[in-house]
């Protein structure tokens, strides 16, 4: 293989674009870590991404704001956005596609035909069902039809964002378009849901890389969400948790507590009932770039029962409360007694008893009964 060819395959391609092998491996490492894969898998992921053939991804858009696509593109290193898109083979993406119209449709059909049963179908946006699904038509066909056809032929379906996972903002009351998430349309098919508005890009990347490298999907919970990202609530890993546990709260935005970074629970933070990794993995690869980090309460964007339903500043119950051991127990242990004191007391009591016993023996022995009686008789007249 000549040098120019080399440059178009494997690492050469990125090197040609000015991205070092180091940066590429770093991206794979971050993605692996996000999925919870151990460090030794990074090499396999990188190889598979570089050589084995990038997994084809067909990205469908329905009732969406494109925020989930944007989240993938928002990274601190501009070149990495390309990397992200190059770790997978993005065969169809309406926003990023250069083509339009009929050409775009043909590209989609071609991609589906070529990779049937192998491609990853990513769905962004909710799917309306009202009026036979007419509220969203792409190329004349309803979203319901498109989702069922393409999703049905996919190797794996990923619903990215809250809208695709459970309906998102279009499904807010009164939900006039009867918007639902992809799992409701693709009943019976395993749909990996990555709710969030938007979700952290590495949730998506990790899932796809695992599929690409090993052909398996990550462990999912009862709502189809990967456990590596959605098993724990914001509250359980929140950096402001010590303030919560110590009762230090922001009462009003801008007050003293707010300036000190106190817990936002009282301003309506939905963290205690929101399952998402945001408290650990912030956005844009900037530490602190997440709602609570910049001083705004979490609004529960991943949870169907919270986002766009419960008012922003209404407080919520705690899911699976895990009070730390620092709480006072019902009956605290208030400490024991001094051993030295017990010893001294024992000695004193013993001495008294001994003295008493000795004295009574002495008295009993020294003067007999008769003598005592006689003498006393003399006195008491």
């Amino acid at each position, binding site marked *: 293989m000549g040098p120019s060819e080399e440059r178009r395959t494997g690492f050469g391609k990125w090197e040609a674009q000015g991205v070092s092998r180091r940066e590429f491996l770093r991206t794979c490492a971050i993605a692996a870590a996000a999925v919870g894969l151990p460090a030794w898998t990074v090499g396999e992921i990188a190889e598979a991404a570089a050589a084995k053939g990038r997994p084809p991804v067909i990205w469908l858009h329905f009732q969406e704001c494109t925020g989930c696509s944007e989240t993938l593109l928002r990274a601190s290193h501009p070149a990495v956005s390309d990397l992200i898109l190059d770790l997978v083979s993005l065969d169809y993406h309406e926003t990023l596609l250069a083509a339009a119209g009929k050409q775009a449709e043909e590209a989609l059909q071609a991609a589906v035909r070529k990779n049937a049963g192998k491609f990853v179908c990513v769905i962004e946006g909710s799917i309306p069902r009202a009026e036979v699904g007419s509220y969203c038509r792409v190329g004349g066909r309803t979203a319901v039809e498109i989702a069922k056809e393409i999703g049905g032929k996919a190797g794996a379906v990923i619903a990215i964002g809250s809208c695709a996972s459970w309906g998102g903002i279009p499904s807010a009351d009164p939900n006039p378009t009867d918007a639902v998430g992809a799992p409701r349309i693709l009943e019976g098919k395993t749909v990996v849901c990555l709710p969030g508005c938007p979700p952290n890009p590495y949730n998506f990347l990790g899932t796809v890389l695992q599929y690409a490298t090993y052909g398996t999907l990550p462990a999912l919970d009862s709502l189809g969400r990967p456990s590596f990202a959605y098993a724990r609530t914001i509250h359980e890993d929140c950096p402001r948790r010590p303030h919560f546990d110590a009762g230090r709260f922001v009462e009003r935005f801008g007050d003293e507590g707010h300036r000190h970074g106190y817990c936002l629970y009282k301003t309506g933070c939905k963290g205690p009932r929101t399952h998402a990794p945001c408290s650990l993995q912030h956005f844009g690869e900037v530490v602190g770039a997440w709602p609570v980090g910049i001083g705004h309460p979490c609004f529960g964007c991943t949870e169907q029962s919270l986002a766009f339903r419960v008012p922003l500043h209404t407080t919520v119950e705690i899911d699976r409360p895990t009070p730390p051991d620092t709480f006072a127990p019902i009956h605290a242990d208030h400490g024991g*007694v001094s051993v*030295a004191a017990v010893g*001294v007391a024992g000695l004193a009591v013993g001495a008294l008893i001994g003295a008493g016993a000795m004295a009574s*023996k002495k008295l*009993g022995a020294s003067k007999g009964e008769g003598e005592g*009686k006689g003498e006393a008789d003399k006195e*008491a007249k």
Partner: protein
Amino acid sequence: MSHNARPVVGAILTRPFIAALAVFALCLLVLAWRFVVGLGPTTGMNDGFPWGIWIAFDVVIGTALACGGFSVAILCYAFNKGKYHPLIRPAVLTSALGYSLAGASVIVDLGRYWNVWKIPLIWNWNRNSVLLEVAICIMTYVVVLWIELSPAFLEVWEKQEKYPLLCRAARRAHGWLNRYLIAILALGILLPTMHQSSLGSLMLVMVSKLHKLWHTPLLPVLFLSTAILMGYAAVIFESALANEVFDRPRETKILASMSGIMVVVLFFFLGVRLVDLALRGRLGLVARLDFYSWMFLLEMALFLAPALLLLSQKRRYNPGIELISAILMMLAGSLYRFDTFLVGFNPGPGWSYFPTIPEMTVTIGFVAFEFLAYLFIVKTFPIIHTGVAPHAFGAAAPKSSV
């Protein structure tokens, strides 16, 4: 009333006296420290056990042991048994000292002692409070005791021709006393009846914190009877000691007859206690054989032993057995009070109490002071009976070996 008591002959600064003085000095140092830093660093009392030995021992047990004056007064003045008269003055002295020291213990134990002058003000009184009744009663009784004892002092001061003012004042006081003595003596029987039973009533309010083996509405009756018992026992004990130390013939017959009465009271106490527990269905608690059961059984044994020992007349005349019985009775009554106030008191899991060494030093120091004061007073004033009939010639003064 004529009598034949004389000051005991002997030096005051003997070795035992100086030893007790040293202990008392140590106690004073601890007290100074207590008033500077507070009760927390000096005692073992805590939020779970706010009352420690300064209340349970110094006040509750201490006053009961000081009930000699009360017990003998009942016999001598209420039941007209004049033969007990020689026992009165030493008993009243012990009582006066004991109660005064109990009062001192209270002052030391109070956290906000600067408000204590507000207690006697009638308009402040919460008439529901048993502790108020105990406080007022004891305060009054201390005064009554020293008045009861005052003839011993007045007899000496009256004769001090060298100090005419003192002489005149003493004579006038003695005259006043002779007029009101009956009222004072009656008070000296009424007041302990009231407050010794009330000491038991103090624990009535702790319905959920006092173990059911000790909590009963009959607490006042039980405390009063044990106070009388401990009073007699203290008199016997003190009489035996004084006779040994001051080398006088024994008052065996008087003490033996007193022991006979003690047997009645002992069985009365045991009967009331056991029948009360049986009627409330609490005897099962004894059968549990846990720590509380064993303390209860120990108490009962300590009460039963002297009762059985003193049943026979022969044994009542044995000074050794009498002394052992007296000691057993004092231990029994003390243990009963300890159990009611400290051992049976359970504020909940996690709390424990044991007195600290400084705390014990104060208690022992107060006892040492009583010892010092007793010796000083019996050697200065006519307290101890010479053992010879009144009006007899050649009544020799008792001599001290301490």
